[in-house]
């Protein structure tokens, strides 16, 4: 044995030597015989002549790019029109942009025909459109048309199914092959395949459909909407259920599902497998076989036990107590579960392959949901376990952001659909993906105001901008005399003395023309006078003259000192998205009368800052005028002293935060100032500027029987009408006031920056 071994070694060494002598190069290859490890180093070769390789196209070819004598662009576009129709529609081939040029984006709804009832849900969609600022009653100026035929339920087994739609629409003179039409649909197809067909030819109409599949979805043309129930509120809508940002999420369960298990048919592949991930501890997946009439025919061995477990737990309880919720496909791709999970801040884990997610053109679902694959169901538990707590926290907050911005009411769903279409009309004036997915949501950001994010109050921190260092003082003048009132002169002096004041704009809201320029006080900053229309909502028009981010809104009889203005402005720069001001009021729920009340009394809380002396961002002028529908502004014009409540409600609805009160020196309006008013206001318009100051002890009770009482009740009525219009009460209360750091401290006045505030 020994000798044999020796021989073997000898031969081995000899050949090794031989090899080394003759082919050192080959030795490296030898290494490959010794196992995988060496092979792992094998990368793409570094070719010796790699620098000599030719480019994939020579520069001339790249820059010339083909033959310019080809089909002319105009002809090509014309040819597209005939080629790319129906299932291959795109905006450039199936939508007539020219209809939208003259009158802008206007939406016309076909008048309802008699004997043609629509479902409750479609009624809500129609009324959402009619409530929107884009609605027009004139088909001539319309850019987009909505049918009055209920097309929501196209399952021909359903009771709501409308027959002979084809015939009906062909009878519409405006139909025009469906061009510029928008069709809403929630359910399409039926047992057994639930295919996407609607049972009529939509032609070139844009389809806004729930459970859209990526195959039939025409990108950039159709819109996927979420499935919502018929109880979905028309407006306002419930807020999300996330009340606290707990880290780690203090939830009983990690992942839950409770729903039907399809034993056969479409969707059963996934639904039939869900029970596998149930572990009885932090992953709960409960299924029932009970659905349809003949479920017992297909019943398997699990069914009975599963059905019992299923009955034991409550869907709502699971929803509330879980971090992740499985949202699998049903028979169709979308389900009610999706919105329910979103509202509950239960992060949706989507198992619905091929579903074009709702509003995916705008919404980045990767930030709010886990898009799983039906084929990888069994990996879901480990995948969600591995998501870091910070990411879970971000996911949860994003679900709430999206729910509140786009889904909580029929209004929001419909308006999001319209805004997405509107954005396509002028891509250069549209919202970026960032805007759609950041607070306060795309609907509240008007690209017509600006396309630069730094011009809005919402993105300073996120994008590293800062608000402008100066403000515009905006004074509404109502004095009737041809001359300027004393308080107003004092106000102009005080405000213009502020180092942060860039300009003064006076809105002259009186019948008599403003005094000639010589009569105005000499100020160091430019002073502009604008003639108003004498409507109350005038003061919130987006005036071109206002050039700075900050607006200091003032009434002519407001009395402010320079240091008050300076301090308030320094506070506003910390809270540029809120209203920061001096006199405040607060609202409360009056359970006896079952309505909202409000008080201007001194209270420990505040929720309204009067715009007679307040800083806010100039964007709110645009939002007030452009975003709110005309009807609401008319309502405000008809009521006394309602416009500033509306402004507060609007800003609170946008920010979900209370306004900020800063310290005030003394009461703000002088009684004397109230004499000078223009009493000859337009018919039906109550005299402006007659608002009761929030003076000490001016309790509403004291005002009973006076003119103030009428104003007070009008103001209360205003508040209730606004709450009704918004669908909820957006105002939020605050218990604090911001004072200078050394306010009323017992230190030398010389050390204080704002000593005069303490007088």
């Amino acid at each position: 044995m020994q000798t044999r071994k020796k021989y073997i070694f000898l031969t081995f060494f000899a050949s090794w030597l031989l090899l080394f002598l003759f082919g050192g190069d080959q030795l490296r290859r030898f290494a490959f015989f010794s196992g995988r490890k060496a092979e792992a180093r094998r990368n793409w070769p570094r070719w010796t002549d790699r620098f000599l390789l030719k480019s994939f196209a020579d520069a001339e070819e790249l820059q010339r790019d083909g033959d310019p004598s080809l089909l002319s662009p105009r002809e090509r576009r014309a040819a597209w029109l005939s080629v790319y129709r129906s299932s291959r529609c795109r905006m450039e081939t199936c939508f007539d942009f020219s209809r939208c040029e003259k009158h802008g984006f206007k939406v016309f709804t076909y008048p309802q025909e008699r004997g043609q009832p629509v479902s409750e849900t479609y009624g809500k969609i129609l009324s959402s459109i009619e409530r929107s600022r884009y609605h027009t009653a004139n088909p001539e100026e319309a850019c987009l048309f909505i049918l009055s035929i209920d097309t929501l339920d196209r399952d021909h087994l359903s009771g709501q199914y409308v027959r002979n739609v084809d015939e009906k629409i062909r009878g519409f003179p405006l139909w025009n092959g469906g061009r510029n039409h928008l069709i809403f649909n929630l359910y399409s197809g039926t047992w057994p395949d639930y295919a996407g067909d609607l049972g009529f030819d939509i032609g070139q109409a844009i389809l806004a459909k729930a459970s859209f599949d990526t195959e039939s979805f025409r990108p950039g043309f159709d819109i996927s909407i979420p499935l919502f129930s018929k109880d979905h509120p028309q407006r306002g809508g419930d807020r999300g259920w996330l009340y606290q940002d707990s880290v780690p999420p203090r939830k009983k369960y990690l992942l839950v599902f409770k729903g039907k298990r399809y034993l056969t048919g479409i969707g059963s592949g996934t639904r039939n497998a869900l029970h596998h991930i149930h572990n009885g501890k932090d992953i709960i997946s409960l299924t029932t076989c009970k659905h349809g009439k003949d479920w017992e025919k297909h019943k398997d061995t699990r069914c009975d036990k599963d059905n019992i477990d299923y009955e034991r737990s409550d869907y709502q309880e699971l929803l509330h107590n879980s971090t992740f919720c499985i949202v699998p496909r049903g028979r169709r791709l979308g389900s009610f579960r999706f919105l329910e999970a979103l509202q509950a801040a239960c992060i949706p884990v989507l198992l619905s392959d091929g579903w074009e997610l709702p509003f995916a053109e705008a919404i980045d679902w990767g930030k709010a949901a886990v898009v799983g694959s039906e084929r990888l169901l069994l990996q879901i538990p480990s995948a969600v376990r591995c998501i870091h707590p910070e990411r879970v926290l971000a996911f949860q907050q994003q679900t709430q952001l999206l729910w509140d911005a786009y889904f909580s009411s029929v209004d929001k769903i419909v308006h999001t659909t319209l805004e997405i279409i509107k954005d396509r009309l002028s891509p250069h004036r549209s919202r970026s993906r960032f805007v759609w997915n950041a607070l306060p949501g795309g609907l509240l950001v008007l690209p017509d105001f600006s396309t630069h994010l730094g011009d809005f109050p919402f993105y300073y921190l996120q994008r590293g901008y800062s608000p402008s260092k100066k403000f515009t003082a905006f004074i509404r003048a109502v004095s009737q005399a041809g001359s300027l009132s004393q308080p107003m002169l004092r106000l102009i002096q005080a405000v213009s003395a502020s180092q942060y004041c860039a300009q003064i704009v006076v809105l002259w809201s009186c019948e008599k023309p403003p005094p000639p320029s010589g009569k105005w006080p000499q100020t160091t900053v430019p002073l502009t006078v604008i003639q108003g229309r004498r409507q109350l909502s005038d003061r919130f028009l987006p005036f071109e003259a206002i050039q700075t981010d900050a607006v200091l809104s003032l009434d002519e009889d407001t009395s402010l000192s320079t240091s008050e203005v300076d301090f308030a402005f320094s506070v506003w720069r910390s809270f540029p998205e809120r209203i920061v001001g001096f006199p405040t009021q607060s609202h409360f729920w009056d359970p006896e009368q079952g309505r909202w009340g409000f008080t201007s009394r001194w209270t420990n809380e505040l929720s309204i800052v009067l715009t007679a002396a307040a800083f806010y961002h100039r964007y709110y002028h645009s939002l007030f005028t452009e975003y709110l529908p005309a009807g609401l502004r008319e309502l405000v014009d008809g009521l006394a002293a309602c416009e500033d409540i509306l402004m507060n409600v609007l800003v609170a609805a946008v920010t979900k935060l209370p306004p900020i009160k800063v310290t005030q020196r003394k009461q703000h309006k002088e009684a004397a100032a109230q004499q000078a008013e223009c009493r000859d206001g337009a018919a039906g318009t109550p005299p402006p500027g007659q608002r009761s100051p929030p003076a000490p002890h001016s309790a509403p009770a004291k005002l009973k029987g006076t003119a103030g009482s009428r104003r007070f009740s009008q103001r209360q009525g205003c508040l209730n009408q606004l709450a009704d219009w918004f669908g909820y009460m957006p105002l939020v209360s605050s218990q604090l006031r911001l004072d200078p750091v050394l306010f009323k401290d017992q230190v030398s006045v010389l050390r204080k920056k704002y000593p005069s505030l303490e007088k």
Partner: protein
Amino acid sequence: IMCASAKYNTRGPALIPRMKTKHRIYYITLFSIVLLGLIATGMFQFWPHSIESSSDWTVEKRSVHDVPVVKLPADSPIPERGDLTCRMHTCFDVYRCGFNPKNKIKVYIYSLKKYVDEYGTSVSNTISREYNELLTAISDSEFYTDDVNRACLFVPSIDVLNQNALRIKETAQALAQLSRWDRGTNHLLFNMLPGGPPDYNTALDVPRDRALLAGGGFSTWTYRQGYDVSIPVYSPLSGEVDLPERGPGPRRYFILSSQMALHPEYRLELEALQAENGESVLILGRCTNLSDGVPAVRKRCYKNQVFDYPQVLQESTFCVVLRGARLGQAVLSDVLQAGCVPVIIADSYILPFSEVLDWKRASVVIPEEKMPEMYSILQSIPQRQIEEMQRQARWFWEAYFRSMKAIALATLQIINDRIYPYAAISYEEWNDPPAVKWSSVSNPLFLPLIPPQSQGFTAVVLTYDRVESLFRVITEVSKVPSLSKLLVVWNNQNKNPPEDSLWPKIRVPLKVVRTAENKLSNRFFPYDEIETEAVLAIDDDIIMLTSDELQFGYEVWREFPDRLVGYPGRLHLWDHEMNKWKYESEWTNEVSMVLTGAAFYHKYFNYLYTYKMPGDIKNWVDAHMNCEDIAMNFLVANVTGKSVIKVTPRKKFKCPECTAIDGLSLDQTHMVERSECINKFASVFGTMPLKVVEHRADPVLYKDDFPEKLKSFPNIGSL
């Protein structure tokens, strides 16, 4: 831990031969085999010509011309045409990718071969410089695997970047004979110039069945959303010309058109714009009378003026990128490199990487029909936005256009994100240029919530051995209505906490946590016992705060749950003489920090302090036993971008125990140390995150002339 151990690693490592046998006979056989092999190899050495072609072993020094040749029979199979209905869930085999802890797909590259037809004519150029760069980049990346069995994605080495440089049918045959082709499942092809005359299809014409296509010129009709990847057309000029980034701002021309071959119709429209708007519009064309030797592609002419290309692009604010025969244009890359804002006029074009890049931030897309309105559309864009777009354009080029490597990696990352969506790269990471990433903050508590009052707060008292004072603090704090739990962090390892019976009896649960080491950072540990969002950190000697003050502090925190809400405020100042930061505790008109001797904050910040504190700050604080509060102030301000909120007039914590033992000198060294902390932290954070404000929060009716008994918080203490 569960996550690290990949539970669902579907494809285990390849079998490794096990060598545990003891039998000699095996050794002998093995040796003989090795011997035989060696001899055979040695023999090959004297057979000079067959070696290279018969093996595909990698040798560093090898020429592209030496790769093996594969002959394609005329009747070898051709794949089906591309399937337009393909989506990830229908045509992609996810099981090949599996679940893995790194959430990275594995990419295999076929080895390079030269394909010839029956007559020996080659099918295409073996490989272009760009495709070689691309494959090199993939092979050097984390995505690469050489194990074909573990691969999730396969990249053929057949170069299809330019359709004009290949024979369509034969290339398709070459694809079909790849070892793992399987109808093209999980195969990725890169193509930049699709289509050919006369109709110029917008996607590669080579039949490719289910293969994914990374294409540079998709239209909405050929692009399979969520399956294909739209990539740029690489401009080789990027490698040749170095255009330094030019600062944003107004430039000599407003609109520039630099493309050489425009359709006459487009040219007419552009000329009409020029006629209307004069010199601010410049339309360049091919130079006709260049002297020999000057490359035509590097020059552009307008009348008799000659301009250098691409340098001239930097002279304009907007640069027109019109479609040619194809939708994708290499000029887009040049324009982005020059920091010129592209005005893209190509209806139905799918912009490069549009799945992840937000092109609205870097470009203006104008429908062809609206070309006459181009000038007024561009004029309506605010100047500040133009500057941002210029920066953004340059950033897109730097990150995703500048090299084949950048293009390859972005493509793979996009596919990776689809397969592991829960680990996908966020919008911000894809789109924010470094300058924005640096100056912006993404607040982890971004949702405007006012937490319910009923939740209450948990008081965390850090104590060493001052039991008497601790008990007083506990008694005082327990009077605050919203207190929901009290946690004592016992930081003394040498002494046991007092017996249960000795502790004050309070109405809320009281828990004592003993620490392993006497460290200041124990105060900011995210104890499981803290079940509320709000934490009140309080020292064991803070007995002067009234119940109203604490309750009011909690109410203020509820309105600002993402901030530090505290009582005495402090300020940082820039010391111009010393050229560094200085700590200020004098009574100033401004605050930028609050002391955490008593402060409310969100529990989330405990996580950040314990696990995400940048640099060595945490250890530094523990070693110096000082400045943990300043570190917390830095941390919160840095992550939220917001200032602290100081509540009530209180200016300092006076503790009755600490009588002024040589107070002045102690004070001096204290101030110096604290200033040092600020300078140290500012350098670690790389910026000064603290925000200075002039306000503090008081109850609405504080010091107002109003009956005290009607105020919610009448007992707001003194200084």
